[in-house]
């Protein structure tokens, strides 16, 4: 397909702005742009059709099943987007006075109240723009806490080997050394190894629960207690919160700080990679360190932005976070209410168990007794015996109009496919997925040499990724 730069012709364009009604200013030469500015010259028709063509080459949740493990690709309710388009939310300047933005501040205060109740935390900041940004912020809180106490030797963050890659990367960005602890053969944090790993240099421990193998840590209270006993704090990665809303709360498991992914559990759309929102909640012992400003409720029922936070870690972003994403999440919470949130988690876990149950006689599922909201398939044997990889199987799924599961994660399971159906899929969709997964298994085992050729029905075949990285072409060049 042509790039927008290869369409149109010089002189074409859209007529968007009026002529000036005030005198035009002559800019001094020393400030004037010298180089030619190459931008598309397209009519509105061409532009509109260009993006319709791109749209047809994009697969969204509305197109079909999207069981990306750890990503919680649930349906994105349309009312959320409608509410985020209300002019009262979109057309307000972030530096307007408090009196003129009471509704916006109320949105953030209510979302904070509800999300704290859901997670068992005391306070929350919406400044972080994404999950990784939330991790960065949450770890900053831990660091500020130890520093305030004069406890300066705590320079290590412990993460399990099944952790998301962002966990160690965020710890490094906050200046921490990373200690990995192994998982047991059953898929849980190795409590003995954790006990050996902690010490006076432990700043904190990062965990998602249910963990990335889809298992609820049976010894969670013992785990968080080991960290607390050593003087460290517990960080909850909220990626998998969708499994436990109304069932159990991070705050009751011994976690001191959490980040949430509003674009996962709270149904805000992913937008092809963002914007998301990664609010950070914490227990009272960390509240003073939260990013500034904070939204507070005055005695008279009005809302204020408080900048008087002397112990705050400071700002992690301009303004107050991805506000319109918070609007969507609040809309969702109001829609579901206390019953609906729990019901969503129950069905997320039910759908995963239902699908796992139907697949376990076909595929190797390392932890198949029971799962939470997601489960792992390992294709290690298939790879060894037939040379068919997790990638091959994933690519085959594309031909059936389904998004593949997350591939090659977690790292401690070879040839992993991580399946998270979510609660918004019907039984028929799950049954159809099971049928397709089984059919693909049959195809690749009987004709393993064909497996590397998938997909065959998509707009492009497998791209040359090695070539892309070796000879990077990262932009179009005019007049080559």
């Amino acid at each position, binding site marked *: 397909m042509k790039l927008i730069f290869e369409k149109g012709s010089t002189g074409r364009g859209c007529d968007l702005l009026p002529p000036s009604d005030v005198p035009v200013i002559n800019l001094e030469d020393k400030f004037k742009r010298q180089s030619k500015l190459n931008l598309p010259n397209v009519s509105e028709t061409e532009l509109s059709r260009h993006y319709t063509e791109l749209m047809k080459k994009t697969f969204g949740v509305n197109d079909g099943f999207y069981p990306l493990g750890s990503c919680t690709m649930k349906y994105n*309710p349309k009312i959320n987007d409608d509410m985020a388009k209300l002019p009262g939310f979109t057309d307000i300047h972030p530096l307007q006075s408090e009196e003129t933005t009471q509704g916006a501040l109320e949105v953030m205060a209510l979302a904070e109240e509800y999300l704290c109740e859901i997670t068992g935390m005391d306070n929350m900041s919406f400044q972080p723009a994404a999950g990784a940004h939330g991790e960065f912020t949450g770890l900053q809180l831990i660091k500020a806490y130890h520093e305030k106490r004069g406890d300066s030797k705590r320079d290590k963050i412990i993460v399990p080997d099944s952790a998301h890659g962002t966990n160690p990367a965020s710890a490094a960005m906050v200046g921490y050394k990373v200690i990995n602890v192994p998982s047991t053969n059953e898929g849980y944090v190795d409590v003995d190894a954790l006990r050996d790993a902690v010490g006076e240099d432990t700043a904190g421990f990062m965990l998602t629960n249910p963990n990335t193998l889809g298992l609820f840590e049976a010894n969670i209270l013992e785990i968080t207690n080991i960290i607390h006993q050593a003087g460290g704090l517990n960080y909850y990665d909220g990626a998998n919160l969708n499994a436990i809303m109304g069932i159990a709360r991070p705050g009751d498991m011994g976690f001191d700080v959490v980040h949430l992914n509003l674009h996962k559990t709270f149904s805000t759309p992913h937008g092809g990679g963002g914007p998301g929102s990664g609010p950070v909640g914490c227990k009272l012992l960390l509240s003073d360190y939260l990013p500034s400003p904070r939204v507070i409720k005055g005695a008279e029922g009005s809302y204020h932005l408080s900048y008087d936070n002397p112990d705050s870690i400071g700002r992690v972003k301009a303004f107050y976070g991805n506000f319109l994403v918070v609007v969507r999440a609040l809309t969702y919470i109001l829609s579901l209410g206390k019953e609906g949130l729990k019901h969503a988690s129950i069905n997320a876990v039910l759908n995963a168990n239902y699908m796992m149950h139907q697949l376990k006689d076909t595929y190797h599922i390392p932890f198949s007794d029971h799962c939470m909201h997601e489960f792992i398939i390992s294709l290690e044997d298939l790879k060894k015996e037939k040379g068919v990889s997790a990638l091959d199987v994933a690519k085959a799924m594309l031909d059936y109009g389904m998004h593949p599961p997350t591939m090659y994660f977690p790292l401690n399971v070879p040839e992993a496919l991580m399946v998270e159906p979510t609660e918004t899929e019907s039984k028929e969709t799950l049954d159809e997925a099971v049928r397709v997964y089984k059919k693909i298994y049959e195809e690749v085992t009987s004709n393993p040499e064909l497996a590397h050729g998938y997909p065959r029905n998509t707009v492009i075949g497998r791209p040359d990724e090695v070539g892309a990285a070796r000879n990077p072409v990262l932009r179009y060049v005019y007049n080559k």
Partner: protein
Amino acid sequence: MGNYVPNTLEEQEAMLGLIGMKSSEDLFVQVPKGVRLNREFDIPSSKSEMEVSRIMTSMAEKNKIFKTIFRGAGAYRHYIPSIVKQITSKEEFITSYTPYQAEISQGVLQSIFEYQTMICELTGMDVSNASVYDGATAAAEAIIMSVERKRNKAIISETVDPQILETIKTYCKSLDIEVVVAGASNGVTDLANLEKLLDEETACLLLQQPNFYGQLEDAEKIGRLVAEKGAKYIISSNPISLGILKTPAEYGADIAVGEGQPFGIPLSFGGPYLGFMATKEKLMRKLPGRIVGETTDNQGRRAFVLTLQAREQHIRREKASSNICSNQALCAMTAAVYLDAMGERGLKQAAELSMAKAHYLARLLCEIDGFNIIYKGEFFNEFVTSSPINVDKLMKILEDRGILGGYPLANDKILWCATEVNTKEEIHKLIDILKEVAV
């Protein structure tokens, strides 16, 4: 109940039976009793769509929408073409995930590639990433990118947006990067002072052009000073201004960053926006964030993929160039469609109109007693004046007349802004009110 769960309670029971469970309680046998929440959440019950719509709308209506805005300071109201809103409302773009599966994500990938191209064109740089969270985090990431083993000092001009400086301080503190603020005189970076601060341990200088006060800095001369010491030169720009102002590359910058919000994104109470970030080829592998590259598929057809992933957290974990694992994709697409629609002519026009309106406003303001332009240098579309009466009081008066006045910098200092959306009539109305209250 559970509004978006399609399966009925009967279907759920049948599914439970099929997997050998008696009730939904059995699904959570793994969860120890000691951590169970044995009560309902203390939040309201579920509501119908109509009820929720009413509640949210009533909150939205508690916010005041100003028909006339003369405030910028990091967030700008520009005209948003209809085509921008239509295209970025397409469900496929809204609901898709990060384009890991290239075969079914060519649409998003190509749009990011086109976005990267236009950011390079605007800034004069060789390589752009797929965007980061916002202009402030883009600046912070650029600083981290510049630090070398023997160069650990980041100099930030005092004329940079204070929110950007605050964000940088948070990022740098935990990495033990020294942050030094270079003072200003007459609303621009003080060159003599800067020269003293620049040394062999300086990793970079961050300059904002036009700066927070709207002033145009002598960015070319500053670039020469920075280059003499072998430090990296980072310029943060208002992207609209790049339609007519010199590019960061023309000033000798190594990294160009900025807040992309003016490109078709509504004010939205501060977010979501997007940070753009571009650099020279030599720094390509240090650039954080997602990058899309062009390649071919197994039949030789043009294809786009996420590339240079060896920099990223899911491969490198704690050794990654950043922890970022997303971009503001839909905002980047918004910016791209905005630029497609505007073209060179439209963008230039938006920049020229913004500058002309701001200068017209400044001229009329100066005719009122007590309003004086504080910084005398050339400016783009923002400028600072004194105020003859208490600024908060003045803003309140304007608010009551439906105008969001300039941004108060102090009791007697205001940062004004105008863009192409401000009409001559609006400016005269503002001036009339100010004349009334200034006497």
